[in-house]
């Protein structure tokens, strides 16, 4: 594992005030609005939200994988002491895959359908290291075994593997250099319910074993509920709530989090009417003046329509809601 002299004491990843805009002819649309988050070494952070909330954009911004028309328009992403936003491409390349890696949503999109698994692993290892052919082969077998796939499949092409095995092969690829941070964008959503759950526990197991931090983006809160230490809820490009997972499930603070948790029908217990959250997220091309959740919020107050809440501290959590605005003398 690569070590860095400058992260002693500081968090592994420190995202401050990050803004991402989509530059279009019709004007700029802010998809990620002033997001702060920190990640400690070995921590599992889940970012949860629904369509259009900006979670995938945020993830791509952190991984420095944005393509036009999306671009980072403000803020910093400090990883192991260096601000990645301001790094040149060759400095970034040194970091990529060795210090952090990315697992995409669909293996069929991320893996090259024309190359065998081994060929793709070889490409990655050659691009980021000077390993010999023998070392590359040994490492390829090793990572496949780690994720529970028979190394004989190194010779297979992606379409010859089942969905679950493909996802595992992708995760193995991300672990080739045992990075300190693995970023995952809904890696299980193409799988069936049972496969998803089993893959999640494997990911957690790998994380415990090798100690890497994970940022896991998903639209399905229940998937991460027993694996993540902290959970960030995004809405309309902003962070709505950030707290420990248990705290969020036991005592959700932001009305959106409350609504979201209530929207899951339960298996056991009495059948209660689900309310859901009627309405739609705001049009980010014309964001509202006040709180973005206000039109759908069952607890909205009058001033919510005119004043934007900042992220306030409430215990160990952060909430973007005027309900938790502290008394005037305490300002974040």
């Amino acid at each position, binding site marked *: 594992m690569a070590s860095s002299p400058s992260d002693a004491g500081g968090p592994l990843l420190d995202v401050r005030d990050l803004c991402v805009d989509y*530059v*279009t*002819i019709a004007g700029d649309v802010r*998809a990620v609005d002033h997001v702060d988050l920190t990640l400690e070494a070995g921590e599992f952070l889940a970012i949860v939200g629904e369509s259009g909330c900006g979670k995938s*954009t945020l993830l791509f911004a952190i991984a420095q994988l944005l393509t036009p*028309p999306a671009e*980072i328009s403000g803020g910093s992403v400090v990883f192991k002491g260096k601000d990645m936003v301001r790094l040149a491409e060759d400095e970034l390349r040194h970091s990529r895959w060795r210090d952090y890696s990315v697992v995409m949503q669909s293996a069929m999109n991320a893996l090259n359908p024309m190359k065998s698994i081994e060929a793709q692993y070889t490409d990655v290892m050659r691009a980021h290291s000077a390993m010999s052919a023998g070392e590359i082969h040994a490492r390829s077998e090793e990572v496949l075994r780690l994720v529970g796939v028979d190394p004989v499949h190194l010779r297979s092409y992606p379409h010859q593997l089942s969905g679950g095995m493909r996802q595992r092969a992708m995760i193995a690829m991300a672990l080739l250099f045992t990075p300190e941070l693995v970023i995952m964008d809904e890696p299980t959503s193409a799988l069936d319910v049972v496969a998803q759950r089993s893959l999640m526990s494997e990911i957690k197991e790998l994380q415990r074993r090798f100690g890497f931090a994970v940022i896991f983006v998903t639209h399905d809160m229940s998937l991460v509920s027993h694996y993540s230490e902290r959970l960030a809820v995004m809405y309309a490009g902003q962070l709505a709530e950030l707290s420990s997972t248990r705290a969020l499930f036991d005592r959700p603070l932001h009305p959106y989090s409350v609504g979201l948790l209530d929207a899951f029908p339960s298996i056991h217990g009495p059948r209660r009417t689900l309310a859901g959250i009627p309405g739609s997220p705001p049009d980010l*091309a014309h964001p509202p003046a006040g709180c973005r959740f206000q039109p759908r919020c069952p607890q909205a107050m009058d001033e919510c329509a005119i004043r934007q809440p900042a992220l306030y501290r409430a215990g160990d959590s952060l909430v973007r809601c005027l309900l938790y605005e502290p008394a005037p003398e305490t300002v974040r």
Partner: protein
Amino acid sequence: MTTSVGTAGQSPSRAVSSRGILDASSRLVRAIAGNRKATIGLVLLLGIVFVAAFPGVFAPGDPQAAIYEQQVGPSTSHIFGTTQVGQDVFTQLVYGTRLTLIITVVVGLLCTLVSVLVGITAAYVGGAVDGALSLVTDIFLIIPTLPLLIVLSTYLEGSGTVAIIAVLVVTGWAFGARQLRAQGLSLRSRDFLEAARIRGERRSYIILVEILPNMISLVVASFLGSAVYTVATAAGLQFLGLGNSGEITWGTMLHFAQQNGAIEAGNAWWALAPGAAVALLGTAFALLNYAFDELANPALRPVRRRRGKLA
């Protein structure tokens, strides 16, 4: 206009409401005005159409009148000089516009019609019919065009413009048919077509009402593509002497200019003028074709990079 906060697979945000044809046309006008290629292409094309419709406005004389000094170069009274029998080149150019344009549009329309019929039938009916139609399409795609053109033209020599049109349609429809079939196939799997089948619609209704409107953009692109193909190829055929040299088109002008050694005789504009005109018309259609692609597929639009610095 729709603004989409496009993260992977997310739904587009809501757009401003529209009101049918009136709004669709005004959206189209705004879209064209906003796209430089579209504006230039359209202006060029409209200019040429205007010249074709009202040639007398631009050139008062008679294009066939062989009354001037023979084969002279450009001068104040003859902007592009005269032909070897003393006709004014500029007047010929202006009057030749109409037939040139007619050939282009007619071939474009006929090619598109055949492509649509073949392509959509193949895609929707499927099975053996698709196999047969695709085979025919492939054959016409593989056959080398120029030899076929020449053979057909010499065979039909004397039939003039109609021959040219026929030849161009026969050699030009296959490409569009391929594309339309491909799009038809991809549309087939869309749920709304299955929904139409399940609610009991007849097959002909589904093809005409449910599928065809979704393919309009490809049909228009096909037409524009055929037009570009025709402009140059028709001129080329006429230049070679095929087709009716008695009619005045840009292609026949090129033919005569070359036959009479215009460039050596110092009257290069007799060849250059129609050549430039052909290029202009082709460019107009090509620009419109690109612009149409960009309008239909936002991913192709030019990206304006922001030169600002990070906040």
